[in-house]
């Protein structure tokens, strides 16, 4: 029998999503739905932190459909912790555009439920289901601003390319199944454990499944949807997409690589190293030519995914621990950045690179928070971004991939350029005339959770920068448990 306490968080998310849907359908306002959603997420944290359940659910034959290891457990907690501030971002954004609907919270929770399944999947079936449950709400949320052409264009692009990726995943699963007769990770590991190179059919199948994950991660060359979707989607949804699915997907990737594919390290390690280098370089190089801040952050995401992959390439507990650390810090920084961007959008500031000129004088607090978050992104100590980069590059060097670390450091120099460029624009550039006219006066301090989220992000980024042990003491043991 399956112990349902293992599945409690996943089931709770699904049920709570449906409750919210019912509540919205029967006339509940979007604002109260938001409160319920955040309340539910916060409540869920309690059992997840106090009673972490480990073990396997739905055991079939050699393996199981879902498995809960410390790595999965920690990833789920981090997802939940990141989801709460993101959920807080939706209200101030959509209210201002008269598009606040209760469904968005249902969709967020369902997507989160998908991520929970994804992070625990021990079989291609739940992996596929989790991936789709994570992605479908994202397609819908991207189109949430129904009367904006960019929003629906973003959704369309995301949908078509996402559908293509999951189609390739399924084809790959079919090939793996044809070659080995199993879809379970555990049996696959046994089948691959015989040693030697896998036969072509199987290797093509496995490559296709990994490709689907890389697509979700927006690794170069499967990244091209990212800038368009990030730019077109409503800003809180962009924050959601930047912070959460990346974490879920990388957890799945690590569990695939260190699980069934651990015998094929000599195949995937160099391949991923090349992709990581490509992502870091392309992401940061293209970012410096962007003018729209959201689009710039999208390219920066691509670069950051490259940095994260460095930790995966290291293939050591330190590396994978660094991956979790990096994504937690990165996700939080992104949420903080987007919170500030939403506030700027609400204040009718232009969210373009040149529009930020002189922001420090107009809105010193917002500019200061942007500055700190951008410094963290650029990897300037004492912010957490520096520790995050250190935590992936150090294991990488230890694993013998010094060249990749060198590429990474060079890419982060380029990445530092655009972060500092934004800072320079905010602090030293003179705004153009129309910006000064359009922007609302300073006094319009709004009652919104945005500043709270941004402040919390800044605080955590600072604290983790000075005391990285608070988080790395959790991520390292969790990653060690993988081996």
């Amino acid at each position: 029998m399956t112990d349902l306490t293992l599945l409690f968080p996943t089931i709770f998310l699904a049920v709570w999503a449906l409750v919210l849907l019912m509540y919205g359908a029967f006339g509940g306002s979007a604002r109260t739905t938001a409160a319920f959603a955040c309340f539910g997420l916060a409540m869920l944290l309690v059992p997840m932190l106090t009673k972490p359940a480990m073990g396997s659910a739905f055991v079939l034959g050699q393996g199981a459909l879902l498995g809960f290891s410390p790595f999965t457990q920690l990833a789920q907690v981090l997802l939940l912790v990141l989801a709460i501030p993101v959920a807080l971002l939706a209200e101030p954004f959509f209210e201002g555009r008269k598009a606040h609907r209760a469904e968005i919270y249902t969709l967020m929770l369902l997507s989160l439920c998908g991520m929970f399944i994804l992070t625990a999947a021990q079989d291609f079936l739940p992996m596929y289901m989790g991936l789709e449950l994570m992605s479908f709400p994202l397609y819908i949320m991207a189109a949430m601003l129904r009367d904006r052409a960019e929003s629906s264009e973003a959704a369309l692009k995301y949908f078509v390319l996402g559908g293509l990726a999951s189609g390739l995943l399924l084809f790959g699963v079919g090939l793996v199944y044809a070659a080995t007769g199993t879809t379970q990770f555990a049996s696959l590991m046994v089948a691959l454990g015989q040693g030697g190179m896998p036969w072509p059919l199987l290797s093509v199948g496995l490559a296709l499944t990994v490709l689907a994950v890389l697509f979700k991660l927006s690794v170069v060359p499967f990244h091209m949807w990212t800038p368009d979707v990030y730019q077109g989607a409503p800003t809180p949804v962009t924050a959601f997409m930047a912070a959460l699915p990346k974490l879920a997907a990388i957890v799945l990737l690590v569990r695939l690589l260190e699980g069934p594919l651990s015998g094929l390290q000599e195949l995937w390690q160099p391949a991923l190293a090349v992709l990581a280098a490509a992502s870091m370089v392309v992401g940061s190089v293209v970012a410096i030519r962007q003018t729209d801040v959201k689009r710039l952050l999208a390219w920066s995401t691509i670069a950051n995914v490259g940095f994260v992959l460095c930790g995966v390439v290291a293939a050591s507990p330190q590396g994978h621990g660094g991956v979790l650390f990096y994504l937690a810090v990165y996700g939080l920084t992104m949420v903080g950045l987007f919170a500030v961007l939403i506030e700027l959008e609400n204040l009718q500031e232009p969210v373009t690179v040149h529009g930020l000129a002189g922001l420090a004088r107009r809105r010193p607090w917002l500019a200061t928070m942007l500055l700190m978050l951008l410094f963290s992104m650029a990897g300037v100590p004492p912010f957490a971004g520096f520790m995050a980069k250190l935590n992936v590059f150090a294991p990488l060097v230890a694993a013998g991939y010094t060249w990749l670390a060198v590429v990474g450091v060079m890419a982060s120099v380029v990445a530092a350029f655009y972060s500092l460029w934004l800072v320079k624009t905010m602090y030293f550039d003179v705004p153009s005339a129309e910006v000064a006219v359009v922007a609302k006066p300073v006094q319009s301090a709004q009652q919104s959770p945005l500043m709270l989220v941004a402040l919390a992000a800044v605080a955590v980024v600072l604290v983790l920068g000075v005391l990285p042990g608070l988080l790395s003491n959790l991520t390292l043991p969790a990653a060690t448990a993988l081996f």
Partner: protein
Amino acid sequence: MTHLPTILILLPLLGALAGALTYLWPTGAKRRSNIRTLEHSNIRDTIAMATTTGSVVLAAVLAWTVFLSLWLGGGAASHVDWFTWLNAGPWQVTFGALTDKLSATMYVVVATVSACVHVYSIGYMHEDASRRRFFIYLSAFTFAMLMLVSAPNLVQMFLGWEGVGVCSYLLIGFWHHKESANAAAMKAFIVNRVADAAMLVGLFLLLQTFGSLTYGDIFGQLGANTAALMNAVTPLFGYEVSTLSLAALLIFVGAMGKSAQFGLHTWLPDAMEGPTPVSALIHAATMVTAGVFLLCRLSPLYELTPDVLHIVAYVGALTAIFAATVGLTQTDIKRVIAYSTCSQLGYMFFAIGVSAYPAAMFHLTTHAFFKALLFLGAGSVIHAMHHEQNIFRMGGLKTVLPITYVCMWLGSLALAGIPPFAGFFSKDLILESAFMAPGGWAQPVYYVGALAAMLTAIYGFRIVFMAFEGAFMGDEKVRSHAHESPWVILGPMMPLAAGAVLAGLLLSPMGTLEWWQGAIVISHHHDALHAAHHTPAYAKYAPLLLAICGIAAAWYLFAEYRNIPRKLASVLAIPYAISLNKWYVDELYDLAVVRPTRVLAGWLYRFVDQEGIDGLVNGAADATKQAGQALRQTQTGHVAHYAFAMVMALVVGLGLLLWRVMG
């Protein structure tokens, strides 16, 4: 009880932070005009002064509690862990507070002097528009200094070390509108950087050797495998050097910078550009003694490296005599005291050099009291004389500033080492230890020290007599306005005066090894301190006699017959010029280091940087931008192109994979 040290360390930080928070206070109308007037910032200044001064005074009370409970209450050394800052596998850095006799003594010195200086500054900085900043810096400095002395490992110590360096920089340059103050601040910072570079290498060497920078770990290993560690060598320029000696020497170089020992002392006299309370706190009583403290803290290490100890002794003796000779001829009252500090620090170092660490710490403590007193007294004079610092424009001030006069007398007597004042006990112990150091190798050091003791008495009383005795030599207008300082300035000098009188007597157990309860370790091979009990009478009393002669000479030359020094100077023109120009060390550095560096830098800037590197860097930046533009154009916006890119990547990737798998 166990958390008292933690509280007392954090108190000044809280005070500084609370003071800094007043900058967030809405300033209302002030924003329109950039001119800050006193009335506008009055309340905020008062709050900042109250929080900083209050917290430091409280810290001083707690420091005495901790110290007395350790000493008289029979308490044991304690160690509190705060948190683990770094956890890099086998290497951990855990912040905390190690409270043994060594750090407790430093708590008392730092917190007491700091409290007096805080109160004093309320009066002294009364007219300064940015005094709030001043108090915040002072408290921040106190916190950093307490961190330095309480650290259970060298990493936390180094953080405190750099922290006091930064605060010192900020306070020297406090009057940043003065060009000379900025230059002095930069000089202090840069000279210390040179020393700190050496020190960092030393720390790395220790880390490499011991795998830890925690005192406990290092000393434990030193005790457990002494022989192996002493034989460990490090390759250096093709030679093999004893690792321990090299590390000890490098750390000593760091200490030389902070404690202004000969060669790296040039910043200290210039640092007198800062406000006088700063000189009293940082450049007399606390920060400059950090080097002495560090070497005492590392006594188990230095005891294993006698060769380095010899160097320490010689450097200390050289500094003592050098600074004493220079002090004889300077005219700026604060500079004289600064050279005196330099010289006294030399005494402490040569005490360490002969393994008399307790004597060094004893002298550190008594020196803190009387030197802070001297500085605050000088400050009182300067305050009364409207920022006149040249002693040749003073004279006859004893009727105008009677209380300051008495304080200066007490301080100078203590400095000159006249019983029963504080300096006598500690300085004597140092000289006796040097005389009796096993093997007699340190006897030259003793003679240098005794000579320096006489010079100390001369220059010490030179300022007293020049400023307070005889006829007034300055501008009559200044004199008519001169007045005794208010009690907020005189008050804080009283505890220090009491210390200058009594500290030697009361704290004399500090001069024994047993008192330190294991915080200091002395190898019995070179226990000069123990042997010092058997000093022959002539060696024991010679320094005292010399000092008395010095005072008498000072009276004769600077109170009675003031025209003699001028004649002497013309007769002894060359020695006088050497002394007046501080042995030409600054000029030497200018010639040997600063100018060549500038020429080289100018050349590098013009030919290598501007033409070579800038060209490369700008080229690389332009290339990156163009690459970005090119890559950007591949992002066409068409889904079909994106899908095509994915499929092509897939085909290529699968092709490579299959080639790898099948080939």
